[in-house]
């Protein structure tokens, strides 16, 4: 039972860390919370049976790191879009001119 919770907490902690690094926003909080809960259960079982809790402490460390990354990213990272490059601007201008040329040949009721 203890091993199962340790494995689950390890899996979710790893997933939380990966998601906190990737731009998935606060979605990383779900595996981080799961890792924390499973880690806590594993820790209590380990304490009861007087077994080593080194790995679980490692899981908690990963959980804290992931949580910090997630919070930092959600607070300090701003949503920006890529500026149009010269090629895109040129292409858009060409498209605009093509549109005007096309509109010239149409019968328009204003």
């Amino acid at each position, binding site marked *: 039972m203890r091993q199962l919770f340790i494995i689950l907490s390890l899996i979710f902690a790893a997933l939380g860390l990966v998601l906190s690094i990737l731009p998935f926003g606060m979605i990383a909080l779900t595996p981080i919370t799961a890792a924390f809960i499973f880690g806590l259960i594993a820790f209590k079982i380990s304490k009861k049976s007087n077994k080593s809790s080194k790995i679980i402490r490692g899981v908690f460390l990963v959980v804290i790191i992931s949580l910090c990354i997630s919070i930092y990213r959600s607070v300090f990272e701003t*949503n*920006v879009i*890529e500026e149009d490059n010269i090629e895109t601007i040129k292409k858009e201008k060409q*498209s605009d001119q093509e549109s005007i040329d096309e*509109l010239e040949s149409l019968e*328009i009721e204003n």
Partner: protein
Amino acid sequence: MLRIFITLILFVTVTIQGQNNTIVAGEKLTFTASYNMSGLLTDLAQVNMETSTVKTSKNILLRLKCKAKTFTKWDNFFKINDLYESYVSPNSLKPYLYKREINEGNYYKFMKYTYNHKSQTVKSLKRKRRKDGTFWEENKTLNIGSKTLDLVTTLYHIRNLDIAKATIGSSDVFPVLLDNEEHLIRITLLGKETINTKIGKKECYKLAISMNADNILKGNNSNLLWLTADANKIPVYAKFKIAVGSGELRIQSATGLK
């Protein structure tokens, strides 16, 4: 005499309803599109809606331009750069030219509709990129109804509706040309709601949008649009449910309004 009078009244009403009283050139609306991932909304892209005047040698038209771009943090995973534009009459919002350019990852699609309102036809051009990087084109002439619009023009037509006079529960149907097929979009007024937005607390008309094509918009009353209950009728908030998930559209800024 009575018949002539009623016909005249109806004609005047239709003419007034067909007039653009809402949309002006120089308007710029910016939105943030969020996508629902495992119950958590994640900001995905910025959507810009702009209007501008376009002059030809004979006419003045209104250009309705919508641009959607993913935020840079997503660009390495999935880059979206879509452009939708429609050239319409500034008085009646009747469309004459529509362009749609989809750039999503490796997927590229270009659609162009050239309207001929006299013959009620649309010349359609579809251009797509093959996997090897080459392009193929398809030209078609489509028959349309007298009220058929494209997607961009429909949105502006909804804003131009005289919603203040509509009763709760009343609806309007718009035939929309999407991927060379005519679909019906139904707009139902659900009521008035006051919501908090980035541009302040706004009293809004809450509208439900549904479509006869089940593969595009999902659910009953799952696609909602909030338009400000003022002369501008700005879309400030939208909730959508599509085939690949659900999300929201929230206004960030609005400039150049009348």
